[in-house]
């Protein structure tokens, strides 16, 4: 199955649905160690992405991701807005004008997204941020792709690793973002951004099946 603009839009819609569904849970995670807005922020952003896509579908997967990126940047705010926005923007740029994505493109897009987040946020794995979900996800995606997986398999591998990565933030002391102010008191809580990354990748993977 070719992964064209329409499919990418569908995948994004699935992401939007999962954010809406888990909004309260993400707020609750952020309430514990942050400022209780992560779910609200992402939901506001993805709802706007979906509205933007309803307004007319761009022709390429890259262009679809770019609409998502600019919408997220202008609607999410907070730390997550620029970070997720940059992630989608870098992926869009990486994919260029291709009209269909193969597994290699998906993996390359994810790698570009991670590089963007790290460039903006300067977080490393172990700092208890979304990077803890995204970095292992990218590694797993690349492995799945070189093992011959299709785009759906690549995303599935990414989702599994992201979930594990998000869980790995529970025992960590946060070193970036708002949770870092807590010092050791951030231990014992999953990072909201890592959790939302895992949720999004899971939704993307299931929608791409």
């Amino acid at each position: 199955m070719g992964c064209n603009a329409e499919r990418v839009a569908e995948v994004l819609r699935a992401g939007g649905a999962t954010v809406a569904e888990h909004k309260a849970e993400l707020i609750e995670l952020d309430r514990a160690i942050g400022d209780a807005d992560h779910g609200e922020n992402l939901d506001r952003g993805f709802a706007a992405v979906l509205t933007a896509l309803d307004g007319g579908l761009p022709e390429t997967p890259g262009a679809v991701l770019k609409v998502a990126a600019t919408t997220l940047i202008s609607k999410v705010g907070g730390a997550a807005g620029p970070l997720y926005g940059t992630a989608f923007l870098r992926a869009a740029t990486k994919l260029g004008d291709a009209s269909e994505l193969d597994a290699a493109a998906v993996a390359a897009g994810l790698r570009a997204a991670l590089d963007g987040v790290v460039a903006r946020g300067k977080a490393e794995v172990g700092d208890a941020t979304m990077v803890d979900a995204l970095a292992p996800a990218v590694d797993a995606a690349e492995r799945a792709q070189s093992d011959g997986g299709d785009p759906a398999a690549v995303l599935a591998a990414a989702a599994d690793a992201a979930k594990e990565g998000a869980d790995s933030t529970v025992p960590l002391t946060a070193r970036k973002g708002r949770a870092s102010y807590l010092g050791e008191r951030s231990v014992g809580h999953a990072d909201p951004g890592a959790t939302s990354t895992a949720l999004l990748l899971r939704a993307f993977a299931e929608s791409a099946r």
Partner: protein
Amino acid sequence: MKKIINDPAAVVAESLRGLAAAHADLVRVAYDPDHVVRADAPVADKVAVISGGGSGHEPLHTGFVGAGMLDAAVPGPVFTSPTPDAVQAAISATTGQPGALLVVKNYTGDVLNFETAAELAAAEDLDVRSVVIDDDVAVADSTFTAGRRGVGGTVLLEKLVGAAAARGDGLDAVETLARRVVGQVRSIGVALSPPTVPHAGEPSFDLGEGEIEFGIGIHGEPGRERIPAESADALVERMVAAVVEDLPFGEGDDVLLFTNSMGGTPPMETYLAHGIAERLLADRGIRVTRRLVGPYITSLEMQGISLTLLRMDDELTELWDAPVHTPSLRWGV
């Protein structure tokens, strides 16, 4: 949750409508993206001073728009940094050839979003600089955190750079002043009760009847340490010590003392704490030459206070005393 609101998603815009109605002589409010500018913006031949951040800290920043302080404020959703397009709209509405200074509180979200806006402005050939304020001594300033937060010092910084811009200082001078202020202002906050973010509907943290969050931020993010409730004398001593020892402030220093209510703490307690802080500083040979007391940087309805100390000199005193005419800070006019 008990609040006088309609839809939690509309709370910022609806509150801005009230601000616009109340202060039409001072400010103009634009919506979507939300930004508040001086009624007479753009002011010709003047460096624009712009700030913003998540809402819920009022009067910061929207209440400080007006002559002698901010040219524009950009309120994001509650506790959420505004987006770059909103900041950019504020820049466009206020900034001319002399350029603009963005006053940014040190939070990842604010820094990233204002940074992006500054880049976009640069692309339009506007000279826009940023100063990041990080005066909160509660947070260890290490590479293991996002750095110190910007808190009470922001109010003083906005007043001082606003006055410098008003007297005609150029962007270089305003920026240099801003960095100087950031270098000599320090704050600490405490919370007695949590705020409730409208869309969350639940208090941002749980605090026992006998507990105080020491080193609280302004977003309901929990503080660094939870201590047993104690007398005002003991608590204010703990706060003064934390601030004084950090810079450090020392005998013979002239300072501005800013005793701030976090929102839910009434004037009776704020003044009571202020009186104690004045006494404790006098005991240390630190001379309070200017003061500000009241709810100026809040965290919704959170109960608590913060103390901010700024080392003063003749120039800062002159800038502090200069006229200011905004919804929430006004003198000399």
